[in-house]
């Protein structure tokens, strides 16, 4: 850790980090108190990760950290030094086509204002990775760490079912 020697922010400690986000490698010097969410949004300009509560409840800021869903508002950027982060911007496929989860949200009208949506998609990604065959109840429980104020969740549940089915199909094709 280093301290700035001069300038108006001299009193704030900073640290160097190296992180891979959506396949791109970044090296940055950041204030140690800089939240991961702010780092992604305002340093890397990946503004698809949203902030709904900044106390780890709403799930809008969910990203994947080494493949696992985490709340980027509850982490500091310095904590992800050397790690791999995936955000909503990294979900689309090679031809920039929508990921099957994104596609299912569109087809089942699983979003309205779209603010919570990236967080849901990241959580669903992690959920279906862990459990490709979720029951309706498991889906609802799996989604319960993300809050949506618009949809009443029903169409999100439908979207997850559709996405799960399609992802299983893809797995079979690959396998």
């Amino acid at each position, binding site marked *: 850790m280093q301290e700035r020697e001069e300038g108006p*922010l001299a009193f704030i400690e900073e640290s160097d980090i190296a992180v891979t986000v959506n396949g791109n490698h970044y090296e940055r010097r950041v204030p140690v108190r800089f939240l991961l969410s702010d780092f992604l949004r305002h340093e890397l300009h990946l503004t698809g990760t949203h902030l709904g509560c900044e106390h780890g409840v709403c799930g809008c800021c969910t990203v994947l950290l080494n493949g696992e869903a985490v709340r980027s508002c509850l982490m500091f950027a310095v904590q992800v030094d050397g790690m791999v982060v995936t955000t909503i911007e990294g979900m689309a496929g090679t031809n920039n086509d929508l990921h099957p989860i994104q596609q299912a949200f569109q087809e089942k009208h699983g979003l309205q*204002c*779209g603010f919570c949506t990236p967080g849901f998609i990241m959580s669903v990604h992690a959920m279906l990775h862990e459990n490709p065959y979720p029951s309706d109840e498991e889906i609802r429980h799996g989604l319960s760490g993300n809050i949506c104020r618009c949809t009443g969740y029903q169409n999100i549940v439908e979207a997850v079912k559709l996405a799960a089915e399609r992802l299983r199909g893809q797995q079979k094709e690959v396998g």
Partner: protein
Amino acid sequence: MATRWFGASIPRIEDPRLLRGKGTFVDDIDLPDMLHAALLRSTHARARILKIDTSAARALPGVHLVLTASDLGELLDPSPLLVPHHALTQPRTQLPLALNEVHYVGETVAIVVADSRYIAEDALDLIDVEYESLPVVHSLEVAAAKDAPLVHADVPGNVAAHLVQVVGDPDSVFASAPHVVSETIVMDRGTAMPMECRGVLARWDAHEEMLTCWISTQGPIPIRNGLAAIFHLPEHKVRVIAPDVGGGFGTKIMMFYPEEILTPFAAIRLGRPVKWIEDRREHFISANQERSQLHEVEYAFDDQGILLAVRDKFLHDTGAYTPYGIIVPIITACTLPGPYRLKNYYSEFTVLYTNKVPVSPYRGAGRPHAVFVMERIMDRIAQELNLDRAEVRSRNFIQPDEFPWDVGFVYQDGGPTKYDSGNYQAGLDKVKALLDYNDFAAMQAEARKQGRYLGLGFACYVEGTGIGPYEGAQVRVESDGRVYVSTGVTTQGQGHFTSFAQIVAEQLGVDPKDVLVTTGDSQAFYWGVGTYASRAATIAGSAIHLAAVKVREKARQVAADLFEASPDDIELADGKVFVKDAPHRSLTLGQVAISANPLRYAYGENARKLMLMKLAGPRPGPALPPERGAPGLEAAEFYSPPHGSFASGVHGAIIEVDPKTGMVTFLKYAAVHDCGRVINPTIVEGQVHGGVAQGIGGAFFERLVYNEEAQLINASFMDYLLPTAAEIPHIEVAHVETPSPLNPLGVKGAGEAGAIPVPALFASAIDDALSPFGIRVREMPLHPCRLHELLQQSPGR
């Protein structure tokens, strides 16, 4: 046959960018050289400000500006009263920063602008405010008490407004009625909680002398007008944009929140862009709230269960200020009669100040309270007379041939509360079918044998939607054939980019994907009001329709001239304009648009092809003949309704209550909804789902808890519980369609509906489930602990 777009469940046009994280919400916009603001908010519900010392904050490196009330000059003026009313005799609105006194926890006291939000918040900690606490009003009961402390020293009795409205002759009906019941019914505070908090980004361009603000708001045009007046700028030099807005539900239709003045002020003063983004804690204590009312209701009915008269006196908590006038209690009074033939009705309300966050409409806006009261009445009549609950409602319904039905009260828009159309029995029948109503009694009895408590409840409502004054729209076909649409309303999740495109596509025979809709940018459309009161699809939708019709007629005229045919023989479909029965005589819509714009320098593929076609040759006289009016295929139209249109619905649910814990589980939920003609069923059903979820939250989980110091003690998502996917049931939605005769589309509003009947339905279902305990629910919300408490006190325990 051309494709019908109106009424089709097409996927939403706005989805792909939102799904990719490419939406543009206010905080997604970072401008070069931008600074960040943070607000110091009062920690006291009522106190005198003795001293504010900002010197340490000003001295902090990275801080550019610290302002308190005394720095504001002529800006230190109370916000405008948005909707004055003769009954609102003591209106009070808020200063951008509190001057000598604070009136609620969260009221703005100082603003800091710094290099980053982090430093701005550091600086807030360095501001020293010396308060002298004053006695506090934390509830309606305290506000109404004799010798209550005063929220505003110059408002006697804390009374902001008092209004009496009477229809018929309730006094004589009560004097002779066979049955009279009276009870107290209470609804506590709840709030909208959009997932995106509020936010303002302001940029002052000194070269153009132009102020641009991006605000997470439902009403950018009124804000543009207001900011122009405040900063003495021409209106066209103020641009207010509501970019993607992450939910509003009413709380973002407000003028002004202090930050909407302070942020632009700081930007102008510093000559640098300034951004303020509300955090969730701030939102809990500074974004407007709603719901709190206390009703003393008395009602008379006959032996057949016909409701004869209602006398409802209620207190309405407006918080510390009345920015939105008395809209909410007026709506409550007007909504209470609901779908029933109530001919003798006395309504009296008193609006009281409390030391809490100000109140303005939140989805439902006074209606859930009214429906709760009226549906409690219907259930009670059934209980008293031992009649079927559905039957009592049927006996009291206004019949389909009785429209228009005038309730007799003046509505929130100053017009009549006059129902334009409806078929309430059809809604109830559908809900009964969806819930297998006739089989429920047996199912309930069977469950009780196993010690399980099932209950069925339902609730009917009528909802005033689609109020004026007006909205407008511009529709223009561009040279490539795509259609540009702009309107003054905003979008915060309703899918306007799709449903508005469908309205235009229907008229112009193009794919909705080729209709590009802009909402909420004051520079794109000058006139308008905003998206609130379930009015955007009805009012702006109608304006868009009228403009599209005008463009279609002009396209037919221009094409008729080119083909030397009659306009009556010209048709529009699949992006083409052609002569009926002669499809080879055809142009694309873009080519017609180019033809309608006599230019020397037309370019692009459409222009080139058009030239090769050598259609009708040069005409004598002006290139743009007077009968053509303006160049191009373009029209602007406005729509102003004669009065609001009245949507309706019936919801029903089967629940199970665990009497040991007070926990309630929904086993079935059915929502039947009538919003007239439906533009996009998928979108409307989504609106209903979301409304029901908010309604369930407001009925069971969500209650803003203020302690005796009027401190909000559950100001976080850990403590104020928004329902998650685990709590919200599957919702079966069905439609009844009684078109509105008031507007050209036959539509009514749909946005708020879902939330309105849920508290009433919930109470009805709990009563039914817990009838062995003799429970009668008279309060909302009813969270598990409170329900458990009621059970402990119940007579049947």
